[in-house]
Every structure is written in C-alpha cells, then in structure tokens.
C-alpha cells in the first residue's frame, strides 16, 4: 500500500473500500478479545473457518475476528451481520450449524440470549437489556472492526477526524474544541484534558511529548485493554490529533505487558498507520510529522502514575516524584509532556467529528460524555458497559447488570481501584460522575465497578486493598511505606479475631496522616478503602472485634465448616474431595468434619450438590458436636 499523500487521496481510498464491500454480504464475526480467547473463541473461529471451507461458502460468507463486545460473561460471542444476530456461549461444535443457518438465513434459537426474567429469546444485540440501556460511543466500533485490519477502521470513517484537523483546523482551534468539550481525563483524577494540553503547549522547552497511558493497573478494570485490543487506531488517531494541537512530534504508548494481545494489536496498528501515512513524516501531505514508540510496563502498579510512568519510559525504576511542577511543564526527560489515558485519547476523534456541542449534550453539568465501566464481581451480567455520565449505580447494576446472582443481597460497590472506596446501598441512587463519587468518599478512577454481595467481608476487602498498596508502594516516602504496613497489621489482626476496639481509632489516625503527608496519589488515597468501610460498614468491624464473628463468613480464622446431619445425603462427594481426609462418615452414614484436620480450603462447601446444600459455614456460634455413625435420613424426592 503506497502512503496516502493528501486528504483527497484518503477519501478516494475510503470510497474504494466502500464500493468493494457489499453491506448485505453475510459476515460472521467472533468476539476475540482476551476474555473471548480465554473462553475458547479461537477454537470457535477455527471451527467456523473449516466449516466455511467444507461447505464451500468461503466466497459467500465473510468471517472475521473483532475486539471485545463487552458482554464477557457470555463469551464466546458470535455476531452475524448484517442482521446483527447475537449468539452467546458458542462452542466449536456449533460451527457447522451456524454456517448452515447463515446460508439459509435462519436463526439458531438455542444460541440466542434468553432474558432471565421473562425467558424470552432475543435475536438482536441492541434488544438485549445489557446493551439497550447503554450508550456505546467509544467502545461501540469494537464490534465492526478487525483490529488487525486498518481497512475496517477506514470503512467506518476512521482517520477522518485527523484529516479534518490537519486540513481545516489550526492547532489552537483543535485545542479550543477539546476545551469546549470539557473532556475530563478518564484515567483517574478527572483532570480536564484541554487544560493539560494547553499547559503543555504553552510550557517552555522543546521537544514536547504526548503519551498514552495504558498501564491500567487498577485491579478490576479492563476497559483500556478492550479498547487497545479492539480499536487501537482510535487511540492512535486521538494521539496524533493531540500532538498536532500541542505541537509535539514524538509520542509514547505505555502498555502493560500483562496484556499481550493489546501489545500485539497496537504494534500491528502502528505499522499499518505508518504504512498508510497517518504516522511518520508529512502526515497526509500536511507537513506535520509525528512518531510513536511503544513501551511495555514490567509489572508495577505505581508506574501508572504520571510522573512514575515518565521515569519508567526513560528506562529507570518507575518511582513517582513530587508534582509541584506539573508533568506538562517538566515530564519525560524534563521536557513538557502530556499524558492521557487510553479512553481519553480514544474520545478525541469523536469530539472532533461530532463537535463539542454534541459531547456537551451527554452527561452531567461537571462531567461530560460517556464513561466505560467494568461491571464485575457479584453481578449477573458482568462485562464492560458504556453509559452517559450521571446514570445511577442502581441503573447500572440492576438495569444493565441484571442484579445480584442467586438472589443474594447487594452489599456494596467498589469504585476507583485501590484509591477508591466501597459505597453502600444507601447511595445506589447517586448519579455517577467524577464529582459525586468524590463526595461520597470514593472516586471514579479508571472505571472499575466491583459489585459485592452479602458474602463479601468488608474488613477483608479493606485488608485486601491495603495489602495491595503495601506491595505496590515504591517505598520512597515514609507515610505510605510505614503507614500501610501498620494498617495491614491491624486489619490482619481484626480479620483473625485478634483485633482491639481502640485500634479502629488508630486506623483512622494513620489514614489521615497518609492523606496529608504522602508523596504521591498512591499513598494519599491508599487509606480510602479503610475510611469508607469504616464509615459505611463499621458494624462489621465491630462484629469481628467484639463477637469474634465474620458476618460474611469469609475470614478463615473466624469460621468453621459444618455439615448439617439433617441435610446430608451421604453422597460421598465432599468426603472424596477433601484434601486432608477431614471428612468422616461413609456410605449411608452422615458425613461430619473432624475439625482438627480441616484446613478450611472450602472444597466441601463448593462440591456439595446444590439440591442437598448440607455444608454450612458457621461464625460466632458454637459448632454442634458431630454424631459419628449416624445413618442417613433420605430426603423424599
């Protein structure tokens, strides 16, 4: 492919691609993000491929891999175009039937999504409640695009925003548009992107750098992975537009090595963009030059912090520094550097194409546009959801997420990663945006939304986040390094039933000091999970300390496994699976646990057939004495 040298050539190429493609030609697409692949989408793809060959339909039906469609719980997902028929949990064995049905224009009922409430089968993606209540703008194109094929991106209008910017707008006009759009950074703090761009642009010093942060370290958030894997060109396009506005000619993409597919697709996309002339010298014949390098992160959470990330791409240990001088003044190699998150960069082409007024029409007063959340944990429809800012937690968790599995009770939702907090039920109707979340003690972060039910112990969760930060703290400043260690010790004591009441105050005091005196945001916000759980779930802390009871029955030291002799049907399953031989009894004899041998691994609890439901967890109550040799009382079927 020869480089595109002008805006007219780009449009000509786009027309060519469009005339070559028949929009009515059937196409089978397989959702092939990491989630999809982890559930076996590759073998589904291969199955479909060999079926198309076997049925001699290769010329009549297209087959492609796309990025993640978001409904990861139901992966592997297959979509049939142009009808947009949506198949869930597809297996390689279904390939022959799918190919046959596409040929005959039929629908395979059993692979359709069925509404868990009404039982109704839903054919089209857009009619499924999970999607119906979303507004997929940034993540939407994922379903049309094979990320390794730049032609797909061009077909849906890709790089038209870049072309518009370079041909019709001055850098100041671009900057003005982003500022007017009031685009706030999607990576955590919600700092206005336009202001960051302007500061970098006006800062003294050359060269200037632009950087994509794809170090998505927040556990429980994976929207950046999905965008980078599924639509890398949108990120690249946004970055080049930003570089043009700022006056930068060199950029970096920092991506976690834990995301191998994202690294792979990004590298392919960069090569193609260079080949087509969207990167490199004299982009689209405009005279503007821009080059990008990829840096893989090597597994360090704090390196996702802007100053640490820039140190990391200098090839050093990615430790943060004080930020009284902004990175926009002195960042990478002490030069003005503008860093934004993947989702922020990916929103830029949309704003340029549709205008800031359009972007402003979505969202709330202080937070415009849409946000992608990773809705995970104890919720029925787990996956990535994109909604306008201002939607309530209840709408997201219940209308889109389909509520809590197995009829359990909602307890809380964690947002903002380790820097965020756990929000209780009474805030379910809070509209979600940057400012509202901060008000209730949490934060937006990169958009992780981890739902917790009554089986989640809040003290254990607080300990989990503190231990996480403890491991990830770079150790440079004392409040963070030592504060976290002490917090971890106290929380561990409480989880193990050794906690003292006065220590709750110590927790709060240390948290305050860390907030005021830590060097970077990791330390300053690390105690948030402790503070919010103390605020909303103090009764759980007290139960652990006073009653030696874990209400959620999670903390190993405070629970005992027990087999209810009335319910046990002596099926031998738990007995055979117990790794330490702690379960006694036998054929026709009620099983019981020899507590001295029990290591509380939880296997018996998980393997006991649901219809018997005989294994229980007890906490804070006496364990009834076992009756060895008792004969089973058979349940009447």
């Amino acid at each position, binding site marked *: 492919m020869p480089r595109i040298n002008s805006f007219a050539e780009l449009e000509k190429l786009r027309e060519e691609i469009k005339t070559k493609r028949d929009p009515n030609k059937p196409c089978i697409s397989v959702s092939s993000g*990491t*989630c999809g*692949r*982890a*559930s076996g989408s590759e073998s589904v793809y291969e199955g479909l491929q060999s079926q198309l060959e076997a049925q001699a339909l290769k010329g009549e039906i297209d087959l492609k891999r796309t990025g993640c469609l978001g409904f*990861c*719980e139901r*992966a592997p997902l297959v979509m049939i175009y142009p009808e947009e028929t949506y198949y869930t949990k597809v297996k390689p064995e279904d390939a022959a039937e799918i190919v046959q049905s596409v040929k005959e224009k039929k629908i395979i009922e059993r692979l359709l999504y069925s509404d868990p409430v009404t039982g109704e089968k839903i054919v089209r993606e857009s009619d499924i409640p999970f999607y119906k209540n979303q507004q997929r703008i940034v993540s939407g194109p994922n379903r049309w695009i094979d990320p390794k094929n730049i032609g797909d991106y061009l077909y849906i209008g890709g790089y038209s925003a870049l072309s518009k910017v370079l041909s019709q707008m001055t850098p100041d006009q671009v900057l003005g548009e982003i500022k007017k759009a009031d685009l706030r950074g999607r990576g955590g703090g919600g700092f206005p992107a336009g202001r960051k761009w302007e500061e970098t642009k006006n800062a003294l010093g050359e060269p200037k750098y632009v950087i994509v942060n794809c170090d*998505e*370290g*927040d*556990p*429980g*958030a*994976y929207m950046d*992975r999905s965008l980078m894997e599924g639509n890398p060109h949108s990120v690249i396009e946004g970055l080049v537009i930003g570089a043009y506005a700022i006056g930068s000619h060199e950029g970096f993409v920092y991506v976690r*090595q*834990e*995301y191998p597919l994202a690294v792979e697709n990004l590298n392919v996309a960069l090569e193609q963009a260079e080949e087509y002339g969207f990167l490199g010298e004299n982009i689209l014949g405009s005279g503007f030059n821009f080059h990008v390098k990829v*840096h*893989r*992160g*090597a*597994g*360090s*959470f704090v*390196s996702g912090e802007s100053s640490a990330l820039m140190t*990391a*791409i*200098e*090839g*050093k*240990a*990615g*430790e943060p520094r004080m930020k009284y001088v902004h990175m926009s003044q002195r960042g990478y190699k002490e030069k003005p550097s503008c860093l934004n998150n993947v989702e922020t960069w990916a929103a830029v082409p949309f704003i340029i194409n549709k205008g800031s007024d359009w972007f402003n029409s979505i969202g709330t007063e202080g937070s415009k546009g849409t946000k992608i959340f*990773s809705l*995970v*944990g*104890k919720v029925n429809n*787990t*996956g990535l959801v994109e909604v306008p800012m201002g939607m309530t937690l209840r709408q997201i968790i219940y209308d889109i997420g389909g509520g809590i599995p197995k009829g359990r009770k909602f307890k809380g939702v964690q947002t903002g*990663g380790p820097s965020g907090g756990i929000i209780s039920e009474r805030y379910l109707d809070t509209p979600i945006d940057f400012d509202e979340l901060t008000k209730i003690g949490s934060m937006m972060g990169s958009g*992780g939304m*981890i*739902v*917790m039910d009554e089986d*989640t112990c809040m003290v254990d*969760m607080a300990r*989990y*986040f503190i231990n*996480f930060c403890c491991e*990830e703290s*770079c150790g440079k400043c004392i409040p963070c390094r030592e504060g976290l260690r002490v917090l971890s010790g106290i929380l561990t004591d409480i989880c193990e039933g050794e906690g003292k009441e006065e220590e709750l105050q110590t927790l709060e005091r240390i948290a305050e000091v860390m907030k005021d005196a830590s060097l970077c945001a990791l330390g300053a916000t690390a105690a948030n999970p402790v503070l919010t759980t103390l605020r909303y779930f103090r009764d759980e802390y007290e139960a652990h300390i006073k009653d030696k009871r874990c209400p959620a029955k999670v903390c190993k030291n405070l629970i005992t496994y027990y087999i209810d002799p009335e319910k046990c049907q002596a099926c031998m399953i738990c007995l055979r*699976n117990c790794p330490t031989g702690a379960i006694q009894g036998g054929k026709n004899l009620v099983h019981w646990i020899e507590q001295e041998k029990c*290591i509380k*691994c*939880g*296997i018996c609890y*998980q*393997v006991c057939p649901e219809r018997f439901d005989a294994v229980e967890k007890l906490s804070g109550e006496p364990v009834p004495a076992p009756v060895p040799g008792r004969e089973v009382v058979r349940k009447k079927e």
Partner: protein
Amino acid sequence: MIGISGIVSKIVDKYQEDRGMLIQILLDVQSGLGWLPKEVLTEVGKQLGVPLTRVYQVATYYKVFSLAPRGRHLVRVCMGTACQVRGSPLIRDRVQQLLGIEPGETSSDMKFSFETVNCLGCCAMGPMMTVDDGYHGHLTIPDVEEALEKYK
C-alpha cells in the same frame, strides 16, 4: 552456539542501543531465557553503557523480572478485586497446597513456578488463573487440580 553476549547484542541492536529502552531490552531477554541470570545483567549494562547498579535496580524494581531460574510452567493466579470477591484467595491456597510451593517460588523439580498477579484484565471471568499461555476462568476450587494435572 550463540553465547550470552550474542543474545544480548542482538536485542540491544534492535533498540539501537537506546538506554531509555533498558526495560524493553530486559523484557525481551527474559522472554527468551525465562529469567535474568547475573551474567545477562552485566552484559546488558556493558553494552548499553549503563552501570550494573542501575540495571540491577530496574531488574529488582519491576515485578515481572525474575533473577532466579523459573520452572517449566508458570502458574499465575489473578488476585484482582473482581477475582477476590469471587473467591480467588481459596484458589491461591489450593494451588499452593497442590504444588507445595508459595507464591514467588519454584518447585524443586523445576516443573512449576507459582505467582500471584494483580489483575489479568479478565475480570468478568473470575476467579481466573493462567498456566503458561492458557487461561482458566470461572474456577471452582476442585477445578484447580484438574487444570494443573495436564501440565504435570
């Protein structure tokens, strides 16, 4: 037979001897060798003109790097928040019990190395574990034994 200096120089050349690419170079070397022997760190430092102390600082700062040989199979249990609320600590304990090693260790027969990771980004499918390149999602505790059996 291509020696350590050959392996290193090939990778260092690929990055045009750019010192800023130190981390990338170490990642590439490790993906070939499985770990970073001392001789490699010395060689990388020499060829890039970076003091060994700094190479060592980087190699010990980032979690991915291993300064000890690793087993034939790498078992990684995801400890991300979404996996955590779905019971990943019990999965970790089970792996630990079955392999007889703690996170960060390698079995004495060099068959398995065991690590926990912060998040693999497959949050919808937790609890999640990977063995080499294979993903195992929606795990229950009894599944762990079956998943590991294949690699034994």
